């Protein structure tokens, strides 16, 4: 099943996606984060919240394009969801395939390890002592995942555990399934 999913991801990337150099993307996101830091006076908690919100707004729209290009139907398990997010979702939008690891025994939580991150190319966090402890530079990704998954009735908590920009070994995202939503209207935090 995993091989088929990977194949689907590669196919969609090859045939259905219009491509562009990632440099403008990287620089644009950098410009946004830098402006947020200035606007909020280096209150990095607030910057994290803003980028998360931006990601959420993107995620709820991005899912439509995802479903339209992949024609995928409902996943049968959260494990499948993880595979699809990594091998198809990340592949078709960012051309990266994060590794899936650290499943909890009840299969509700997993980690995504990003070996490369186009958002953070050539980024060096400011040297004020606070940024490396408080800023999650790529927090927009968490918002995107949360928004997209919510639109397919999966209420998830998504957050960073570690980031190479902060001096950690890896860049790791943790995704936890809180509940499967029954209605069309998303429940849970706004």
């Amino acid at each position, binding site marked *: 099943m995993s091989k088929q999913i990977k194949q689907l991801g590669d196919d969609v990337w090859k045939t259905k996606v219009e491509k562009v150099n990632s440099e403008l993307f990287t*620089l644009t*996101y*950098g*410009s946004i*984060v*830098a402006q947020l*830091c200035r606007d909020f006076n280096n209150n990095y908690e607030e910057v994290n919240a803003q980028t998360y919100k931006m990601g959420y707004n993107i995620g709820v729209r991005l899912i439509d394009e995802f479903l339209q290009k992949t024609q995928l139907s409902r996943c049968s398990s959260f494990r499948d969801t993880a595979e699809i997010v990594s091998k198809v979702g990340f592949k078709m939008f960012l051309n990266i395939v994060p590794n899936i690891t650290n499943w909890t025994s009840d299969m509700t939580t997993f980690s995504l390890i990003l070996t490369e991150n186009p958002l953070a*190319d*050539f*980024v*060096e*966090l*400011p*040297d004020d002592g606070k*940024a490396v402890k408080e800023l999650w530079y790529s927090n927009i990704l968490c918002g995107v995942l949360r928004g997209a998954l919510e639109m397919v009735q999966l209420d998830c908590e998504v957050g960073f555990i570690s980031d190479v920009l902060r001096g950690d070994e890896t860049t790791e995202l943790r995704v936890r399934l809180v509940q499967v939503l029954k209605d069309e209207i998303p429940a849970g935090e706004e």
Partner: protein
Amino acid sequence: MSYYFAILGTNDSPLYELEIGTYKQSGDGKPNFPIEIKELQQFIVNASLDILQDQQFKINQIFFKNLDAFYGYQVYSYLTQGNIKFIISTNVKNQDESIRQFFIEVNELYVKNLLSPFYNVNDPIRSVGFDSRVCLLAKKYL
């Protein structure tokens, strides 16, 4: 036999400075400026900027050797398209080629530093990584 290296921004403000002694001929890298010259380096460099300013819109080259001279110290300059100036003032002779190579590599380091969204043109360069790599380059070329 020493070098004084400075990076100056578009408005001629210093962004980075380094004093280093030559590693060639078993030099140990310790700068060796006489006290009078040490104090004057910044003025020497600044004075040469006037000459650079005159020439920069007439000549389209990047590397200016022999931009200026002061009592045995020669000033070399490298000007990027974005008007960032790398300047070296030195009393070591016949090092045109090494200095040129050094400048080219520092240019690459500078661009990598510049690409970070938290660094803007004309900010002082405080990155420890940048500093240590410039020192490594100096060891290699100077």
